[in-house]
């Protein structure tokens, strides 16, 4: 592995930060403001894209921002794992800029400047997490995401959104400060550093740390990054659904939950390491633990009629696939988990884009009211169908690749129980997505919709969701793009 001091990492971090400042400055002129958002997103994606060839050659890029104390710094690194997250997050931001311009203007929302600025800041946090070189930097950007998304969740500024935002912030900061922070300090006391290890095997904990301490630290990290939606700290996610749909899309696909799972996975592999997890038998118990979330999340999703709520619980369930895969500790399992970060991102953002487009076009939130709408909005529901297939794990859409890896991993780990969990959840996924699509295309048009002539939402919304649906298919057909990174993670 080569080490390089890479200013492009700094550029990647600064692009959304400067973007947020420009958005604030250009607040009075909406077109300039949106141009700033787009510019920042494009610079970010461009920068990340230029890192890809180097990473594929096996390089690791580093950039140190600040030295705080011995063994403690704020520094950035780009390696194969970062790239899986960074590429999907930065690309989806470009798409979301267009979509949210269409959505927010379509609904004539207030405070669009604050909205766009916080959006950029949330991306600043997400990219920071992706490029963190140590636990402290990861924690810093994790908290940045928590704080900067508060105004987004509370955007409507009514009772419901304040309540949801309060719950959101309470869950996320309480777990981060109550579990991750003490674990981080103790890891520093033991290891003398918080820098992630260079490979996924060794971790950074020295020999001789008692098993009980390692187990407690590990549990603190799994539960403390509550953005990963693992039960019992998942409740903030459905509450945060009060936010405008582009926020939900961002929350679910890019910035928030992915930051949570990414952090969890990063810590599992690069702080504890596969060997330590093997040695202390932490892998399979974690897999069983998150299996509960997978199954229960899906069952709750079945019971929801509100489309966004159903998607929210689907996210809770799907995120745990990622942790489950990594916890299997077999190469196939880890690959399946990690590639699901990208696969889930593209498919889930499509689903949320669709939910938003449906709402803007028809002001409908509940699935039971969407009967027959597919005929009026073929593109939107077509994309929804594609993304649903991905969630279920059907070929040739992206989700199939993840599931294939995960099933392989479960075989390698020799765990029948995990196999059963994966199969059950696939059935449940089908059970809560298929009826939505079926009803929309083949259900009767409801009498009160008959005299309304519903059509597609504006192209600013429909084009992005078509693109993301298309990419979901593409990375299902050509999984090599993200899979190439997986081979470099060792």
């Amino acid at each position: 592995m080569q080490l390089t001091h890479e200013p492009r990492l700094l550029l990647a971090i600064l692009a959304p930060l400067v973007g947020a400042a420009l958005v604030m400055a250009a607040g009075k002129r909406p077109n300039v403001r949106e141009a700033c958002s787009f510019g920042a997103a494009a610079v970010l994606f461009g920068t990340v894209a230029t890192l890809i060839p180097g990473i594929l050659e096996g390089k690791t890029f580093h950039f140190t921002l600040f030295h705080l104390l011995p063994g403690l710094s704020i520094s950035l690194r780009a390696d194969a794992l970062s790239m899986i997250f960074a590429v999907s997050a930065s690309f989806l931001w470009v798409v979301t800029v267009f979509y949210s311009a269409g959505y927010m203007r379509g609904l004539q929302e207030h405070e669009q400047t604050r909205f766009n600025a916080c959006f950029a800041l949330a991306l600043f946090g997400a990219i920071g997490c992706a490029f963190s070189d140590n636990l402290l930097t990861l924690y810093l950007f994790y908290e940045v995401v928590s704080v900067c998304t508060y105004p987004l969740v509370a955007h409507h500024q009514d009772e419901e959104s304040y309540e949801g935002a309060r719950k959101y912030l309470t869950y996320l900061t309480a777990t981060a400060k109550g579990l991750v922070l003490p674990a981080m300090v103790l890891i520093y006391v033991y290891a003398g550093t918080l820098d992630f290890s260079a490979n996924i095997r060794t971790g950074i904990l020295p020999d001789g740390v008692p098993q009980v301490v390692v187990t407690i630290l590990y549990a603190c990290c799994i539960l403390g990054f509550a953005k990963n939606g693992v039960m019992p700290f998942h409740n903030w996610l459905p509450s945060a659904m009060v936010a405008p749909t582009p926020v939900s899309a961002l929350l679910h696909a890019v910035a928030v939950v992915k930051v949570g799972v990414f952090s969890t996975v990063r810590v599992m592999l690069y702080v504890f390491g596969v060997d330590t997890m093997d040695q202390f038998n932490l892998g399979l118990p974690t897999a069983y633990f998150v299996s509960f979330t997978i199954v229960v999340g899906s069952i709750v999703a079945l019971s929801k009629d509100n489309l966004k709520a159903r998607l929210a619980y689907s996210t809770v369930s799907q995120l745990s696939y990622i942790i489950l895969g990594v916890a299997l500790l077999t190469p196939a399992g880890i690959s399946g988990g990690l590639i699901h970060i990208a696969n889930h991102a593209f498919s889930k953002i499509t689903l949320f884009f669709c939910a938003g487009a449906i709402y803007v076009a028809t002001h409908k939130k509940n699935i039971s009211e969407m009967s027959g709408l597919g005929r009026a909005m073929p593109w939107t529901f077509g994309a929804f169908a594609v993304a649903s297939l991905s969630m279920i794990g059907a070929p040739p859409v992206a989700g199939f690749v993840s599931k294939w890896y995960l099933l392989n991993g479960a075989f390698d780990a020799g765990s029948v129980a995990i196999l059963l969990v994966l199969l059950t959840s696939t059935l449940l996924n089908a059970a809560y997505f298929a009826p939505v699509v079926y009803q929309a295309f083949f259900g009767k048009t409801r009498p009160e919709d008959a005299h309304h002539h519903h059509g597609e939402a504006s192209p600013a919304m429909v084009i992005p969701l078509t693109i993301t649906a298309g990419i979901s298919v593409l990375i299902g057909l050509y999984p090599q793009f993200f899979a190439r990174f997986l081979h470099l993670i060792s």
Partner: protein
Amino acid sequence: MSLSYNDTVLSLLIFSPLVAALVAGFIRSENGLRWFTLLVTAALAVFSLPLYSRFDPSTADFQFLINSEWIPALKIRYAIGIDGISLLLVLLTTLIMPLCVLASWRYITTRVREFMICLLVMETAMVGVFCALDFILFFVFWEAMLIPMALLIGVWGGPRKVYASLKFFVYTMSGSVFLLVAIIALYVQVDSWSIPEMMGRPYSEGFQRWVFLAFFISFAIKVPMFPFHTWLPAAHVEAPTAGSVLLASILLKMGTYGFVRFALPITPAAVQFFTPAIMWLSVIAIVYGGFTALAQTDLKKLVAYSSVAHMGFATLGIFALNKAGLEGAVLVMINHGITTGALFIVVGIIYERLHTRELDKTAGMGRNMPIFATFAGVFALSSLAFPGTNSFIGEFLVLAGGFQVSKSMMLFVVPGVVLAAAYMLRMLQRVAYGGTRNPDHSGVKDLCFREIATLTPLLVFVFWIGLHPAPFMRVMETSVQKVLQQAQAGAPVAATPPVAVLP
């Protein structure tokens, strides 16, 4: 004696404000007084800066020493000097003073001359306390501080100012009595008032315990440690902004400074004996302060109780008796001075505009005041130890030091850490957003240039210490090492050091 900078700087820093206070007595115009005091304090702040560059961080000895006779008959000497720890506190004092003047610009409208005189006398006493190396000299400055502070609260304070002022005076005065007894007891043993000479003496263990207890009562009231904290919220709520800032930023530090300067080096055996009890008191302060702050509806009370919690971190770090803990504690002292001082200025800004500090009545005012909301947000985040800000480094080190002593004790600190986030974010949410039915703040103006100038230096330090603490750690390092050596001298020989894997 030559008149170089090194030989004169401390004396000038101590006595120029006093001279300026005399001059201020002859100034007629109120604005003239404001400008005069601002210029004097700002000039002193600039004048004190070379202290940092001329300070030699490689030695733990006292520097910029002056040691001359004062009252030979009583062996009292005029001895002053600073080490790495007091250097930071002196600089904090000189930096905070001009900001206090700025924060009082419009707030104080009556008896401006007397107010400014009080501020200047305070500066003399505060710098004197951190520089004094003769115990009687120290005690003179220590007591001299009480009167102007009590006046600041009692004359320019809120509705219950007399009660608050008296409570403050009685509490600290009774603490001082114990301190005086301890000083005299030490004098009888050593036959000198010199503080360095009192350190590292083979006092009997019983004697050390009594002296330590006297120290403890005096300093614990000043910090204030639970359960001696009840004067603090009353004093803060009634005090004018500048009074609150001085109280929080400088005066509370004197308690922790007392522990570091006197208790640890002079009575090490007693420190070893009492350490567990004091650490537990600190833990209680952290959690109790957090819960109480969460329940407050008055902004100043909220910040005051958060001080109790923050100072709990400082005493916890000091009595962890290891490098990480003590360095963290000194940083917490500096950070608390910066952040809580700033928060009191922020509350003062709110009060000047709305004439209330009730959380409900201030709800949503940040929506019309983006600059104000940004400043308040940064300081609130700093107060809850957001990573990247000053408090984070301090609390991180204190926690690391604490974990090396006892993991189970630290479990009880964790709720305090979470509570800090809870009460600060609650305050920030209310002030910046409020609810759906906010009072009308449409006529309220955003910060003016003077207010921005007051808060900006503090903002710089929040991020400077948070992102590049090396310059601050560098000067205190050897001094901290020496204090630790002195404190360890009292440790039983067989005691094994706790897990010390820190670099």
